[in-house]
């Protein structure tokens, strides 16, 4: 297995693990962190192919992904805080008000 194949496998593995984590873990903060893991997996793929192509555009795109991830977490965590304050738990099974 050469470098590229390994890195692509790493990316797929991180992504799959992140998605699995969202489905299996009950703590909402852990779910957020698994989302970050997914983003990281995608980043690996992006960096690998950017480096192979020698393309600066790839690097810029990776940077944009960083920024978006940061902005996203900046909003998601306060939302989680408010929810946790209302429901007094971090268990996502309690957050089922949007059913039907």
């Amino acid at each position, binding site marked *: 297995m050469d470098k590229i194949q390994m890195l692509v496998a790493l990316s797929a593995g991180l992504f799959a693990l992140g*998605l699995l984590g*969202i*489905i*299996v873990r*009950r703590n909402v903060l852990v*779910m957020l962190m698994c989302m970050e893991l997914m983003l990281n997996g995608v980043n690996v793929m992006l960096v690998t192919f950017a480096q192979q192509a020698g393309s600066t555009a790839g690097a810029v795109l990776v940077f944009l992904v960083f920024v978006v991830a940061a902005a996203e977490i900046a909003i998601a965590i306060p939302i989680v805080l408010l929810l946790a304050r209302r429901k007094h738990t971090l268990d*996502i*099974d309690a*957050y*089922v*008000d*949007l*059913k*039907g």
Partner: protein
Amino acid sequence: MNRLLTVIVLLPLAGFLVNGLLGNRLGKRFVSFVGCGLPLLAFAAAIVCVLDLRTGGFAPLVETAYTWAVVGDRSFDISFYFDRLTAVMVLIVTGVGSLIHIYSIGYMKDDASYARYFAYLNLFLFFMLLLVLGRSLLVLFVGWEGVGLASYLLIGFWFDDPDKARAGKKAFLTNRIGDAGFLLGMFVLYQGLGTLEMERINAAFMSGPAPAVSASLVGILLFIGACGKSAQIPLHVWLPDAMAGPTPVSALIHAATMVTAGVYLVARLSGVYTHAPEASAAIAAVGVLTAFFAATIALVQTDIKKVLAYSTISQLGLMFVALGVGAYGVAIFHLYTHAFFKACLFLGAGSVIHALGGEQDITKMGGLARKIPITFATFAVATAAIAGIPPLAGFFSKDEILWFAFASSFGGSPLLYAAAAGTALLTALYMFRLLWLTFFGASRLSDAAMHHVHESPPSMTGILIVLAALSTVGGFVALPHFLEPLLPLPEVRPERVAFETPLLFVSIALAFVGLAGAAFLYSRKGERAERLCRQFPALHRVLTGKYFVDEAYERFIDRPLFWISERVFLQFGDRKVFDGTLHGIAALGRRTAAVLTRVQNGDLHLYAFLVLAGIVASLAWSWRHG
């Protein structure tokens, strides 16, 4: 004048429209004037047409009034045809019709719906003229249906009484069944011959090679229609009930004109029937059966109009016997004489009912001869005519029928003769019974009622006198001879020629035996009749029950049909199948939605899992399909 036939037809229609729309506002005198004047004008116009016919050497007059429909290269016209047969029919319809219209002025004087009555009567006349003047079966059929409509409207004239309304409905529905046969006959004819014009249909059968259409099939189908209209078995049940209408209506429609439409139809299509021996045999058989059967029922009826109704059915049966043995002209002759004496009888009955203030039960009458002499005299003359006492009209026509029933080479037989002769005997018997019970003997009325009995006004008695006179002398017009160029008389079997004079005397004898029999049974307060009645109670019950035909229809036809409509079509078909399917589809939608709603339960884990499943599935699918 080449538009005269159309004028004849349209005059009564104008009467209907004027009286129907404006009659109530313009008063009884106006309604009477228009309602009777227009038919009289039509009669005058008919006479002019007959003279035209004569001067033209009896070549038929043809008028096309309107092209109704053009389908491809075929066209359907409303056209009128006037030949010898039509002449006879039109004169009867307009002549006797006008007389009855004038009689109605007196009879319906106190009725609130006077204008409506005359409007309907004129409407009837319009449709009847359409029927007899029509050149094609299509126009005839329009007239056929139209007279059925007018009959329904007039039978149920006093529709506030549900029984009377029901009688009207029964008449219409029974006719409809016959019309199904008529329509099928028309379809077969059109498909086989490509035309519905009656003179061309006759020509197709008479001359040239045999057409691809079975004459017997057409004959029987059209006869089914005639059965409905002319009240033959098994579609006779409506005529006695039709007596619920006003008496002049019974005279006009159910004695003189509408019920004779079936006879006219068969006579008009004589070309078809001479080539349909099976159909003709069927007609003769049904005719004689009906004649005998109705005569037996008439023997025990107690309502004056019902006796006359069954008598009409019986006489129509005799006309069909004549048609069945090929003596078409003779049938028309009997139609003509029957119009006179039957109309006279019905109008006389109306006069009796009018005199007694509404009583129709003959067991409650008696001794009226001196009180209402004109009615009595005309009624007696008409009774003698129908019984066949010479030299009155009925004798000539009935004797001809009996003769041809015996001797015609186209189906005449001694058996047919015997049955027809038996009917003639019964006719004389029940008619003289009617005369006796109504007018002779001691009165069975209360004294107060007897005091009120009065003769009818001249507008009514005058008509009775005219009709009685016609019943007397009408027989001397040799109608079969007049019609012979158009409707040839059948060949007589050579071995039976010798019987002609003996049978003539037999006919006379039958009439007088009937008269004597009635006198014997019903004199001295009718005690001999009572004794006879007690000796055969079962037979008496069957006859009074009219052979229970209505009850049989109700049980074997009505009830199963109602059951099918109720259980099969309504509860099963409509509710379970149609509603059930629609409800089922809605329920399916509802249940599917209920199942699908379970996906949206607010659980984020499930949503994410579905995303995963979706990604896997779509990626796998895209790689499987390139």
